[in-house]
């Protein structure tokens, strides 16, 4: 490479990097603006000019949001539902993925195609019949009712199956020689191997469930059973034009998933690239 080309390369490279930075800051700015506004007292938040930092930062809005709405209960509901869905989904998907990958049984191929195909089906088209089902089971306004239609994530089975496919056959053969049972092989040999995948998938499954809106919104009519994602849309009524209080409720709802992402950044990105079926 000649010197001229190298210089031209670096000059444009620098411009692109600078543009990316500016863009990133603008991109995240609404988030910053929301958080900052939630820390402003009522009179400051509606000032007709831009104030990038609160003059008198206050937690008043948060205290108000926590005491005048049922955010506490919504948190409990969200945690219960998200943990429940994650544990059940991960467990049944791992068993199913293992069976499809390692065992030979009639209907195996058909089951695999069924799982691949259900990836395409729009769950939101099923809301009417989910509602009828959950209502008939008497589960409207209950955690179990919010959880039931969310337990199906074919993509998690797909990731597990692909993971188990890649484990060398020697492990299995050696265990079979030792007369280990199928369950022994799965729980003592294969499970400890897939902790990484399991953690990654659990985090994204937790985030998906925490963020779910349409179904939790439909299956719950009583305020105290709402998940926080649905609940905070109700604070509009409670708070009217008190924007800062609405925003503090939004921050409280987004915080757990934002923190989960920041702590497990690598796991989350790994799980998402895995779940889209590519190895990064």
């Amino acid at each position, binding site marked *: *490479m000649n010197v001229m080309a190298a210089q031209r390369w670096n000059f444009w*490279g620098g411009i*692109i990097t600078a*543009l*990316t930075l500016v*863009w*990133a800051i603008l*991109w*995240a700015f*609404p*988030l910053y603006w*929301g958080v900052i506004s939630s820390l402003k007292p009522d009179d400051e938040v*509606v*000032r*007709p*000019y831009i104030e990038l930092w609160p003059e008198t930062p206050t937690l008043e809005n948060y205290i108000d949001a926590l005491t005048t709405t049922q955010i506490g209960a919504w948190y409990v509901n969200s945690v219960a539902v998200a943990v429940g869905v994650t544990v059940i989904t991960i467990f*049944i998907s791992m*068993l*199913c993925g*293992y*069976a499809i990958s390692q*065992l030979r*049984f009639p209907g195996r191929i058909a*089951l695999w195609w069924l799982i691949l195909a259900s990836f*395409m*089906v*729009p769950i*939101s*088209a*099923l809301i*009417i*019949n*989910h*509602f*009828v*089902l959950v209502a008939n089971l008497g589960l409207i306004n209950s955690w179990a009712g919010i959880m*039931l*239609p969310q337990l*199906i994530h074919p993509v998690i*089975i797909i990731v597990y199956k692909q993971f188990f496919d890649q484990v060398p056959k020697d492990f299995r053969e050696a265990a079979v020689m030792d007369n280990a049972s199928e369950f022994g092989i799965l729980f003592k040999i294969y499970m400890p191997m897939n902790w990484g995948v399991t953690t990654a998938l659990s985090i994204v499954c937790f985030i998906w469930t925490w*963020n779910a*809106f349409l179904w939790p919104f*439909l299956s719950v009519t009583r305020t105290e059973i709402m998940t926080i*994602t649905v609940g*905070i*849309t109700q604070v509009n009524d409670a708070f009217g034009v008190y*924007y800062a209080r*609405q*925003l503090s*409720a*939004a921050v409280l709802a*987004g915080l757990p998933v*934002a923190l*989960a*992402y920041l702590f497990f950044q690598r796991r989350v*990105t790994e799980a*998402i690239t895995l779940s*889209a079926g*590519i190895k*990064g």
Partner: protein
Amino acid sequence: MLRNSRTERLVALVLVAPFMAIYLLAFVYPTVQMFRISFTDAPLIGAGRWVGLDNYLRLDNDPMFRRAVWNTAYFVLMTVVPGTLIALLIALGVSRLKGRFQAIVLALFFLPYILPVSVVYLIWDWTLNFQFGIAMHALDWLGIPRVPVFKSRLWFLPAVAGVTIWWTAGFSILLFLAGLRSIPAEIYEAAALDNSTRWTTFRRITWPLLWPITSLVLTIQLILQLKIFDQVYLFSIGGRPNDNMVLVYYVFQKAFQQNQGGRAAAVAVTLFVLVVVVSVLQFQLLRFAERRRR
């Protein structure tokens, strides 16, 4: 290897059973029911009379259904390709950065994707607030008259599309980054030695090698955006939802607000078939495009 096929089948059955039970209950059964009640005049809950294709034939003369179809198509048009291009541009920029710095910048772009839709709604409702929103201050500053975006018929869907691109781009950016990382550095070194320009390098190397990811992102986006509901519903609060009608919203309105289960199911089936047909078509189309490139 010797296999005891009877125990193996039995074990497989035990392992597959929990998933199958839930799958049949919460997926297969509701799907079958959806098709069945779409041929009846059932209310949301309860039995109805068999009416044959009546629900479907009525859709043909239903202006609200037409509006829902057009709005959904318009929304897909404004989000899928532009969103994919924006994500690609961002991924190209982020991929140049190194180490911790890259992680921070990626986090700035990715964070919106992690947030629940109602948080996204509250933040943008505030940012674009007609009286106090910071975006309106920016418009004043540029000398452009203020627009109440979510109350305006003209701006509602484009604005929601913009918010949606902002919200969902993180996912596509990650996929593009994974794709860019899997392109071997030697190829770029060879291109640099040949004095090829940045544009040529992109056009001849990066773009073709990234095509499988691009088609994946397009497919995922298309399926996702056809099902648009949450944002449209939330931003319509206090506005005019009928102007912004989209397909899932129409299913929701018919079933849950007008108690017409059968009519709603017919719309749901239409959406269902539309998503399956479009994704199969797109899959074939993209595979064809990929083959032609070779």
